[in-house]
């Protein structure tokens, strides 16, 4: 069981093809698999569909794949803060399937658990419910949402051992575990790979069974909205 690869390009070798569905972790620019996104850009693979909560900003995150027109569809809950995205969308060059954020997370989790569909109250009576099966349970109406089964998952964690058992850090966990679970193959990038036995088994956030390939690398970890308070007002 050899999961560790030298870099993002090698870790993605043989996994990329045009027209594929990729589930990506991250919320805004927090916890995004920035090294793998760059390698996907370099590969030139195109007509991609991304299941990802956001679309990055113009020059970081999935935004770099929008600039090169490698993305044809986004399944997301919020795509503000990205001018190129808006331009391509309004020009009809990019398709967007809006998912409520919890629906998107649960669709990934469900896919990863072998659950093809589930019912939720979220979106009932809105555009999101149009064309979906409605069903009443205990006098309340729910809509059916489908699990996401991605061709590939790309995610980022803080630390992993050599078998892929991993730990996330603070709010950088976000969509990474459900995104990791829903792909046929999952490639994970981390800030540090540690020897097996180093991490406390009780503290593992995502067990290595979900991680097929692993790389370690330097991360820029860009901040999208730097907000501070001054010591005087505290």
């Amino acid at each position, binding site marked *: 069981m050899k999961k560790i690869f030298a870099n993002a390009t090698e870790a993605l070798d043989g996994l990329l093809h045009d027209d594929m569905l990729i589930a990506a972790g991250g*919320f805004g620019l927090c916890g995004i698999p920035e090294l793998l996104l760059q390698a996907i850009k370099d590969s030139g693979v195109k007509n991609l569909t991304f299941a990802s909560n956001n679309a990055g900003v113009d020059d970081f995150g999935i935004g770099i794949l929008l600039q090169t027109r490698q993305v044809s569809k986004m399944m997301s809950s919020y795509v503000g803060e990205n001018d190129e995205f808006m331009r391509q969308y309004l020009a009809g060059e990019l398709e967007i399937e809006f998912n409520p954020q*919890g629906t998107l997370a649960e669709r990934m989790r469900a896919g990863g658990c072998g659950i093809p569909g589930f019912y939720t109250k979220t979106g009932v009576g809105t555009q999101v419910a149009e064309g979906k099966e409605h069903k009443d349970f205990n006098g309340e109406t729910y809509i059916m949402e489908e699990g996401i089964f991605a061709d590939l998952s790309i995610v980022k964690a803080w630390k992993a051992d050599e078998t892929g058992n991993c730990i996330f850090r603070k709010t950088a966990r976000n969509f990474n575990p459900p995104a990791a679970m829903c792909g046929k193959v999952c490639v994970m990038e981390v800030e540090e790979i540690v020897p097996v036995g180093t991490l406390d088994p009780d503290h593992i956030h995502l067990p290595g069974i979900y991680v097929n390939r692993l790389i370690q690398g330097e991360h820029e970890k860009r901040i999208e909205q730097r907000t501070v308070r001054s010591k005087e007002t505290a």
Partner: protein
Amino acid sequence: MPWDRNQMAERAARELEDGMYVNLGIGIPTLVANYVGDKDITLQSENGMLGMGPFPFEGEEDPDLINAGKQTITEMDRTAYFDSAQSFGMIRGGKIAAAILGAMEVAENGDLANWMIPGKLVKGMGGAMDLVAGVGRVIVVMDHTNKHGDSKLLKECTLPLTGKGVVDLIITNLGVLDVQTNGLHIVETAPDVTEDEIRAATEATLV
């Protein structure tokens, strides 16, 4: 005098009770955190955190620690982190007592529109649809009228809905209105604002 942004937030904070887990939306709702006083309130940030602290001091920002508005924040002693599926699991599972949100329009039956203006603003609903469908109580904080002076409290929403019949209480710059079976009921007026002034600024049925 109508309430200003901070006074609206202060009024909204009075709706919160000791021990509540609460989700605050972006904008005026964020200010509510400044007015909870001695009440033991735990704030949820739907990107995966309970126990959200204030903004960091300059130089102490952490790119791994942001709120749902993507702003840098801090943790507290009680903080817990979790993934997005669990975060929305607790929202959908009814564990969050209340959400305080902004709105573009609210209808007299509690319909809420706050995520999209067709042809103009197409950014997405984020977690708003999950919150209004799942939390115990939905409190809207917004200006009573838009910049053209038109009522934002309507008989029916004109914009795409975020949720149907989901709003429980509306706090505007003019007063507080409860969503009841047959329309909106004025609970309170801002200082020196009369019920007649609220009526004149409201399209929705008042009961």
